[in-house]
């Protein structure tokens, strides 16, 4: 599970807005059985999401979902996504993105069974995205 990213930030009124582009290479397996695929008889779908987690002066813990995808039973659990843009605006609650070196991106997924428990699993492997100290003013996105 690996990700590569680039980034810029832009100020919006009072809150920082971050822009991240990323690649995702992932292979989602059933943790218990090593090589076996996660899509067994009781898995209806996987709800994947890429979330950014970081700390700021205002808030001890922030988590923002940048992108999500639904993988249905029958879809390929191996992902090779390149140059993806975030689906959702990466607004901070304040100005905590500027100069923040410790923004971690993780890929997680919610296993939705045909019936039963709804576990949340976090993928191994995460990437740190350092945000620059200055704002980009002219960037068309």
């Amino acid at each position, binding site marked *: 599970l690996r990700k590569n990213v680039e980034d810029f930030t832009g100020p919006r009124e009072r809150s920082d807005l971050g822009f991240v582009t990323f690649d995702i290479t992932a292979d989602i397996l059933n943790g218990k059985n090593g090589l076996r695929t996660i899509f067994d008889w009781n898995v*209806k*779908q996987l*709800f994947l*999401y890429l979330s950014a987690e970081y700390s700021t002066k205002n*808030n001890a*813990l922030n988590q923002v979902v940048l992108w999500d995808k639904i993988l249905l039973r029958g879809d390929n659990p191996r992902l090779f996504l390149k140059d993806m843009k975030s689906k959702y605006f990466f607004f901070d609650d304040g100005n905590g993105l500027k100069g923040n070196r410790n923004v971690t991106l993780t890929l997680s997924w919610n296993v939705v069974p045909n*019936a039963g428990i709804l576990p949340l699993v976090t993928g191994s492997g995460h990437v740190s995205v350092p945000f620059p100290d200055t704002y980009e003013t002219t960037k068309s996105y």
Partner: protein
Amino acid sequence: VPPPSVPAMLSLDFLDDVRRMNKRQLYYQVLNFGMIVSSALMIWKGLMVVTGSESPIVVVLSGSMEPAFHRGDLLFLTNRIEDPIRVGEIVVFRIEGREIPIVHRVLKIHEKQNGDIKFLTKGDNNAVDDRGLYKRGQHWLEKKDVVGRARGFVPYIGIVTILMNDYPKFKYAVLFLLGLFVLVHRE
């Protein structure tokens, strides 16, 4: 004389049974009925305590979480204060002043050192987040708005509750039949 038809015979038997029951047996059956209702209520209250949620089982009412959940699916919730709210979790929440709980996924959280948390939700099947659904001027949800976190689910079964809500005659029919069954059942 032709023999009476089968349905007529069954109803006659049923009436005979009721007439044969003397007053003591009738009281006994009523008490039995009361016990079943009390036990059911106790189980429900017990679930409320164990899960920490005021509504440990909810029925999905809309299609905003498809294809994961459909109208009529039953969700099992917990609402333990020790469980932190994190993105990706499916929460059931109520908007202040509205009765109907909403089942959506947590999209963003901002939590302070002391545990105060504000978060944003979105339905999987919706194009935009839930800000439009919140109260006027409300931008975030807080712990107090949460009814519970979805931990497990069973499909379809909740359709019965939806039918009973939408068609009150159906509800009365079901309750009537249940009452009848318990009163007449010989045990």
